[in-house]
């Protein structure tokens, strides 16, 4: 059990609870809380020494954030 694995699992647990029950119950808060388990998953991948998984996960995390923001803005405009 190296420290990255323990820290990543703690982050995944905390972030999952935070994304499931956000305090101001709106989409942007839920999306920001969803970033926390993403970084926890990155720490778990780091503990297993997966370079390609780390690189692709970083790119996909930013790209999926962009798509989610566009969807949330479109939904907010149309109601």
């Amino acid at each position, binding site marked *: 059990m190296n420290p990255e694995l323990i820290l990543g699992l703690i982050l995944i647990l905390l972030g999952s609870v935070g994304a499931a029950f956000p305090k101001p119950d709106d989409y*942007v808060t839920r*999306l920001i*809380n969803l970033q926390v388990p993403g970084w926890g998953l990155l720490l778990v991948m780091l503990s297993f020494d997966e*370079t390609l998984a780390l*690189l692709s996960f970083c790119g996909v995390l930013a790209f999926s954030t962009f798509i989610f923001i566009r969807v949330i803005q479109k939904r907010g405009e149309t109601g």
Partner: protein
Amino acid sequence: MNELVVIGAGSIVLIGAVMAITVRDRYQKLIYLSLIVAGVMPFLAEKGYLDVLTVISLIVPISTFFILLACRRNV
């Protein structure tokens, strides 16, 4: 791994995660989210993944900028 790095960076990550979930303001959530990133970076650098560190350093400000666009208006 050096214990001082583990304790320091790990406490930064934990403080950032707990505060990013409990704080109610969106802008403060973004600031604590970048605190998580700052805590993850020493772990990457200590294991020698400098290419991954470069990609994260380039991509995270863009992701923060996208979330900042959504924070401005009340959705």
